[in-house]
């Protein structure tokens, strides 16, 4: 409750929440607002925004409804962002937790493994993975997750290592709890704050990454995404700049919102602040 209070008193964070809710609403309602879907060619190509009734944002290179594309694009971008983050957490959290908690060779092994993924540049690795798996929504999501988990593992490891040293962990050991129980029930719950903050930023990064892949032609041709829109419209950027501008703005706004939320969470969860409140 106090957390929410602290969070909601942060104007930036609240703006972020409102924007994000709006984007989510649009994404969810896309099939209702635009029953024809994003691919249907409805009018002449390259109609400017606000020029035609029923097509508020005009049409694209093939005469498809840009507004519909944006709405459906939100679905894909958010989906990729959320799912890849969840998958990255599913890989990173257990690995980092085990490495940080058990230490010694488990840690060494896990960290070497993590290091391997960190030595290949993120984006290059994502490109190769998508090429290997062929671009589908699933493979793109997976590729993004695979390149995003190492920082999670590192963060969780560091957190677990510091929580592990806290006295209540000793207390649990003295009480005779098993190590696994201690890790799951005592240590991990105390690492969620930084993980939540990181996750909110990862969603943002994943959206950017998906759009970059799409820009390079490594998007799923069956999924309308914002990155796809920019990639497709960049060839006509000179004549019809708004076709790449609108999805660009959509990405910027959504990523911005997620960042604001992340920072708001960070402030709200920041142990410094809460300690001050306690003293």
């Amino acid at each position: 409750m106090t957390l929410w209070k602290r969070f909601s008193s942060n104007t930036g964070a609240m703006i972020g929440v409102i924007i994000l809710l709006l984007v989510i609403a649009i994404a969810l309602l896309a099939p209702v607002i635009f029953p024809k879907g994003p691919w249907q060619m409805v009018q002449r190509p390259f109609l400017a925004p606000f020029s035609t009734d029923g097509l508020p944002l005009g049409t694209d290179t093939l005469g498809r409804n840009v507004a519909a594309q944006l709405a459906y694009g939100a679905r894909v971008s958010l989906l990729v962002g959320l799912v890849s983050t969840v998958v990255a957490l599913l890989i990173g959290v257990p690995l980092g937790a085990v490495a940080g908690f058990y230490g010694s060779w488990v840690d060494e092994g896990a960290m070497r493994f993590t290091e391997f993924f960190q030595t290949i540049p993120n984006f290059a690795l994502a490109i190769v993975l998508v090429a290997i798996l062929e671009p589908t929504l699933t493979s793109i999501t997976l590729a993004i997750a695979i390149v995003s988990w190492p920082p999670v593992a590192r963060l969780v490891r560091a957190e677990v290592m510091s929580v592990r040293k806290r006295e209540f962990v000793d207390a649990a050991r003295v009480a005779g709890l098993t190590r696994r129980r201690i890790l799951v029930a005592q240590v991990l719950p105390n690492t969620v704050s930084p993980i939540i903050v990181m996750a909110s930023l990862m969603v943002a990064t994943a959206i950017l990454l998906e759009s970059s892949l799409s820009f390079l032609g490594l998007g799923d041709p069956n999924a309308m995404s914002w990155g796809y829109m920019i990639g497709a419209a960049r060839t006509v950027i000179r004549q019809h700049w708004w076709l790449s501008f609108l999805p660009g703005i959509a990405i910027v706004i959504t990523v911005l919102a997620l960042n604001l939320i992340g920072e708001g969470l960070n402030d709200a969860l920041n142990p410094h602040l809460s300690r001050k409140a306690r003293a």
Partner: protein
Amino acid sequence: QQDGGRLDIVVQPEPPGLMLGLVQNGPTQMVSGDIYESLLRYTTDLEPQPSLAKSWTISDDGLVYTFKLQDGVTWHDGEPFTAADVVFSADVFLRETHARLRSSLAYVQSIEAPDDTTVVFTLKEPFGPFINAFEVGTMPIVPKHIYEGTDYATNEMNATPIGTGPFKFDKWEKGSYIHLVKNEDYYVEGLPHLDEIFYRVIPDAAARAVAFETGEVDVLPGGSVENWDVPRLTEMEGVCSTGKGWEFFAPHAWMWLNNREGPTSNKLFRQAVMYALDREFVKEVVWNGFGTVATGPISSKTNFYSDDVTIYDHNPDKAKELLAEMGYDGEPVRVLPLPYGETWQRWAEAVRQNLSEVGINVELDSTDVAGWNEKTSQWDYDMAFTYLYQYGDPALGVSRNYVASQIKKGSPWNNVEGYDNPALDEKWNAAATMVTPAERETAYAEIQKEIVDDVPVAWLLELEFPTIYRCNVKDLVTTAIGVNDGPRGAWIEQ
């Protein structure tokens, strides 16, 4: 005509190598077409012209081709060029390295050089299109003194190609540009006019357009900018464009329909696809009005084209009828686009839309160039976009896509759809070896009429790739291969 000046031409993508005898992909042909030469060149009407051969005769039975070579030709390294080089190139080197030429050489009995300036090709049986085999990309003449007895693929001289052409290789800054300089010892008096050529590597299509606008480059060969940019660029002041220079290739686009399995193995389904497609729309919107809707396997730009065939207009109702007749159950079909940039991607999307409008369940597959090659050559697709060159004659560039003997796994340049029609096969083969053009004309007309009803593939468009250039660049596109050997006579008006 004025001498001097420099020409900047976009080359896309960057060629993997410049040794034309070893690598024959598009960009290599474009750059190396200035360095290497073959015996003949072809006008935009596909009439043979002298190149390394100054004259030639064909025996009446169509079996013996005799070429007289130019005098005083030297290689770029100063060595004299002789008939022995031609024999080495055609009979030894290219037989080993050049798959496309190899199929024409199958008709050849012997290649001989009775003296230093004469070469004689003797065929086993008449082969009408043989006269079209002396284009530089088809039969580049390579220096015997450099390659004889070496491992061609790893010969160090591949990095600094030596030809007889109007321009010499100077420098290749990987990822940036290839620099060619004028061959001062070129055997044609007064040629070339230009001092130097820079082939510029710019990976992004939008950046290529910017490069042209800002004056960085003078020539955008066909296909180097996206179609949407073409009208904008050609409307700029002092900019000209031409659709010529592709006659030899006559790129013909279609979708392979897998004849072996799935809904596409049903002729009714294939016909339904033809009716479902709005090819006019694609031509107007996706290709910005460039190109011609294809009526059948042979391009209207080459010889032996006939329009006396069933015409498939955009008729969704008809398509639905056909689908109902065959009892299409909604089984999804996978469409594999050609991974050559946004235009092709849009095209695939338009096709998907057309097909789904008549009730066909479509899913776009996606992959990169390597994956596309793999999938098509392994027949792992339902419908797949492609386009092929026709090389001036149906026997060279068309029949290979439809005859059963060309059903070979592992290559995307043959009868990939698996169309097997023995009766037609015979007709294709007969037409190739007929001696007079008139005979061939009727034979091909008959073939076209029959095959169009079968719809082995879904013919789409005869593509047109306009070359965009500054108007002060003169005489650049004069032959059937356009920019590939155009700089030889091109000049810049000051």
